[in-house]
């Protein structure tokens, strides 16, 4: 016979004031220190384009840009974004004015259910910022932190390649 040990929990979690710029808009928030950036974006700011797919920062569905660099927002605390700029999928384009990377994912059928796609697009933006002319192999390696279960990556690789070309023009 075993009994699960009881874990005491603090009753009133501490709150911290932070200031974050998200997609060019400044937000002043009071958050629990343990609040994840992904949850802050989704639950507090209503930016639900950032998705959560795992609890081990393995899948990349929650990828956003922090000061222009891709991070998995489920592994970043909201307080770590204090004083910094975050870009989410909502910040790069709308359906009437797509970013070239979004356009390429559309044209190349680089998505199916779409759940991983927003993270995949954000990771790809960082990838082509670092390497404007990536080979197939470099794209595959560069997207190693993002999992897609629908596409087999074939069309994602083509999309990133096409987007890299389009951005260079």
């Amino acid at each position, binding site marked *: 016979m075993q009994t699960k040990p009881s874990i005491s929990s603090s009753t009133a979690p501490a709150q911290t004031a932070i200031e974050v710029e998200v997609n060019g808009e400044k937000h002043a928030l009071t958050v629990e220190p343990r609040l994840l950036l992904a949850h802050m974006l989704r639950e507090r700011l209503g930016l639900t384009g950032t998705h959560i797919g795992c609890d081990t920062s393995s899948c990349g569905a929650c990828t956003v840009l922090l000061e222009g660099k891709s991070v998995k927002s489920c592994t970043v605390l909201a307080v770590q974004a204090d004083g910094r700029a975050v870009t989410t999928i*909502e910040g790069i384009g709308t359906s009437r004015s*797509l970013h070239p990377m979004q356009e390429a994912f559309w044209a190349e*059928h680089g998505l199916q259910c779409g759940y991983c796609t927003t993270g995949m697009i954000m990771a790809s933006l960082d990838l082509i910022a670092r390497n404007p002319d990536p080979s197939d192999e470099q794209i595959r390696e560069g997207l190693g932190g993002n*999992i897609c279960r629908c*596409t*087999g*990556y074939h069309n994602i690789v083509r999309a990133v390649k096409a987007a890299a070309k389009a951005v260079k023009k």
Partner: protein
Amino acid sequence: MAFTTMVGARIRRREDPRLITGRASYTDDFKTIGTLYASFVRSPYGHAKIRAIDTSGAKDHPGVIAVYVGTDLADAGVKGLPCAHKLPELNVPPHPALAIGEVRYVGEPVAVVIADDPYVARDAAELVEIAYDEQPVVVDPLQALEGKTLVHEAFGTNIAFRLPIAAGDTDAAFKSADVVIKQRFINQRLAPVPIETRAVLAQWNPGEEGLTITTSTQIPHLLRTQLAVALGMPENHIRVIAPEVGGGFGAKLNVYAEEIACGWIAMQLGRPVKFTETRSECFTAMIHGRDQVDDVEVAVKNDGTILGLRLRVVANLGAYFQLLTPVIPTLTLLMAPGCYAIKNISTECIGVFTNTMSTDAYRGAGRPEATYLIERTLDLIARKLNLDPVEVRRRNFIKADSFPHTTAMGLTYDSGNYEATMDQALKAADYPGLRKAQAEARKAGRLLGIGLSTYVEVCGMGPSAAMPAAGWDSATVRVEPTGAVTVLTGISPHGQGEETTFAQIVADELGVPIEQIIIVHGDTDRVQYGVGTFGSRGTAVGGAALKLALDVIREKAMKIAAHQWEASPDDVEYRDGKIMVKGDPSKAMTTAEAGFLAFMGDKLPPGLEPGLDATRRFEPPNFVYPFGTHICVVEIDPQTGSTKIVRYLATDDCGKVINPMIVAGQVHGGLAQGIAQALFEEVVYDEDGQLLTGTLLDYAVPRAEHLLNFELDHTVTPTDVNPLGVKGVGEAGTIGSTPAVVNAVIDALAPFGITHLDMPLKPEKVWTAIQQAGGL
């Protein structure tokens, strides 16, 4: 503007703009005022009796609204999880939404904590104290078969069912054989891993006594029916919404404990209740796939002709039944003969309980296992008789002139031409050239392998008589007064792109601009009853229903037009997207114009009802049987045992293609999942029933770097099973690829005398086999 045909064209998906901009809404994206959050307390043991549950600590935690255990639901009359099955003799274990008295797998829900904040719900779930008495555990299906440790004591056995199917005279076939080959194939357990885990938002509207369940499901209507039964409510008081669904792969073709529990709790508390599964929970408590031990014995003539086949499938069903658990392995029996004319066959499927999560439908569901065992067997025959695997297939194929072909298992394959498709694939791959390159590589000490699989699969799930639940589907087409067209479909796509393919069909059939067509799905209050999306039935069944409804619309529109022109309806035709008088191009009317007249109502032929809409249901007369040939080339690094796929070519035949871009995408995704089963994916429980692959750090799903650019090709063999002539392609890639990859790896290892290794062919396993065979 000339009328362009949409069907067959590579049309960009209409669902994509919302998905690529993050504006689409999945279940977890919904939140209403007062939403509460559920956190489930789950069994840490593979098997244990529950002695006591103390929820007081959790209840006292600030922010906690309620805590429920299994008896709370049972006492309120909530029923357990349903299983749809048609097996005559089956041990069906009770399966309460929350365990009562005993837990039988790690991750089984025992209690649920409801709090006003998701973090608080998880904190408080830690405070539920449960006293367990550990019980002996069995996780291996062959050990379970022996029955020394029982999962359900009441049955006195771990065997849920035995299903034998036989035809011909197998004993005589084996007596007359030149060669008999025996092999055991392990088809390992897999996790479906949709990137969106399950999520449920249950809302109770007391004013209407209505319960709305927004959930990541593939089967909104079937789920509504089952929730009505479980909760004891009239079905029309329940609304199930499947908004954007982030992948299903069969796993969301189900009724889950959390859906029942959240629905009931929302009614108790009168507040919205949300559950969002963590990835770890997704590994323990979402259904798993495969998990069979298949013993095959084949009787063969020296020229490679198969005389007879014996097969025993031991299927690990897990601890309980989910919706289709016992049905899935029976499909393995039915499809075991594959593309081959095997007359004498003796099979048995034994379903066994173990202390693991239930197995159920996962991409291909029973057919990948069948294809794997027969395609590996064909290669064993080739090896044994020193024949080319291509030749062995050629000698055993069902011939092109014998379709429709009724197999020994009693299925009637609608149409096929296996040899022609194989020849096309061999040509595209330059098979003789590949073999030559292999011979040269071997001389140089390189381990190059070429693997082939030729498959036939069963999809387009229907007819109803052959299904655990119904097999038909529905479509309503509504031409609005302005000429816009609204389609309501019972199909519930989750990535397969039917919003586009269905719109393509409508655009062609009615001549309506594609921008004016909307496809509505996934909401039981908006859409009439339908069965949902699984088993490649979306277009083959739901699309066929749509075609029938469009036929009705067009016929009525032509009657309206004929009346305007004072012409006989027989003199009116539909051509180039318009209704016209035969031989008189000056008299032309669009569907929109006919629709407007239909709604104005005053210029209609006598007796014709106003409005222009139609609902039709399509009951398929048979399944459809897509087929194909896959060729895989691998190279193994002898120093590490790691396998690199050098080329992968798939030639598939799914009948008529509506959108080649979407079909290719379906194949790509299927290939990834099938290749991953061959090389690295596996769910592992230890002997205590602990799940060792409980996160994405331990469970190896393929990443971009593990795969390559695929080469696709296709043939088109029409079917007359449905009015669109389409088959289905969702599972084809998975089904064809697993044996092609394993055959390639074993072919590469042939110089070592290795004839078989069980999946997954991880580097360590391959390296060890090479070492044991004398090494390099």
